């Protein structure tokens, strides 16, 4: 079946603009994660949902970052008043599989460039 999808794949924003990044997880996957990957770095955790509940948002770097998953499927990561340091690839992952070998399945990412 289809894997995790993300849109847009590329986004260029002028500093100060708001952006919204979308993630469509694998159907039936309850858990969803967002990661930020800066150039030359590994992915860093931002936030985690179980169904529609945001259980952990400890990785969100500032209050300009906001994530939601209102119906427990599609998730949106919103960044308000973008700054140059927000430039990164934003990865979404959904968690599932067959016990005990559950794993996180990653989307292709959205590359955000703030100019």
């Amino acid at each position, binding site marked *: 079946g289809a894997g*995790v999808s993300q849109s847009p794949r590329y986004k260029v924003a002028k500093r100060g603009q708001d952006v919204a990044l979308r993630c469509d997880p694998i159907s039936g996957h309850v*858990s969803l994660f967002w990661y930020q990957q800066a150039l*030359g*770095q*590994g*992915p860093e955790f931002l936030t985690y949902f179980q169904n529609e509940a945001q259980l952990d948002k400890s990785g969100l770097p500032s209050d300009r970052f906001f994530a939601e998953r209102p119906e427990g499927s599609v998730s949106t990561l919103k960044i308000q008043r973008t700054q140059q340091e927000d430039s990164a690839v934003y990865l979404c992952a959904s968690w599932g599989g067959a016990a005990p070998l559950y*794993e996180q399945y990653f*989307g292709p990412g959205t590359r955000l460039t703030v100019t």
Partner: protein
Amino acid sequence: AQRVTQPEKLLSVFKGAPVELKCNYSYSGSPELFWYVQYSRQRLQLLLRHISRESIKGFTADLNKGETSFHLKKPFAQEEDSAMYYCALRATWGSQGNLIFGKGTKLSVKP
């Protein structure tokens, strides 16, 4: 603090040579350790995990709790192994918790 360290940013070997990508972790409990791989223009995907104790594409990794290491090894590298490799840790065994990644090692296998 939970941390994953991959000391090599780039590792370059010739085809047929052995490969070892190093990974050390910092965590006081019993973590789950993973290796993820990202081939050119593809998404991040799971290569192997320590609990499976299996060989995937000829790669193996053994968890050494005494040295807090989880090095990835392959006896004979192939050109198609060229990719970014990330070591990752999940703090809570079997949970749905987030992954903590190292900075990655780029493996380049030359013909």
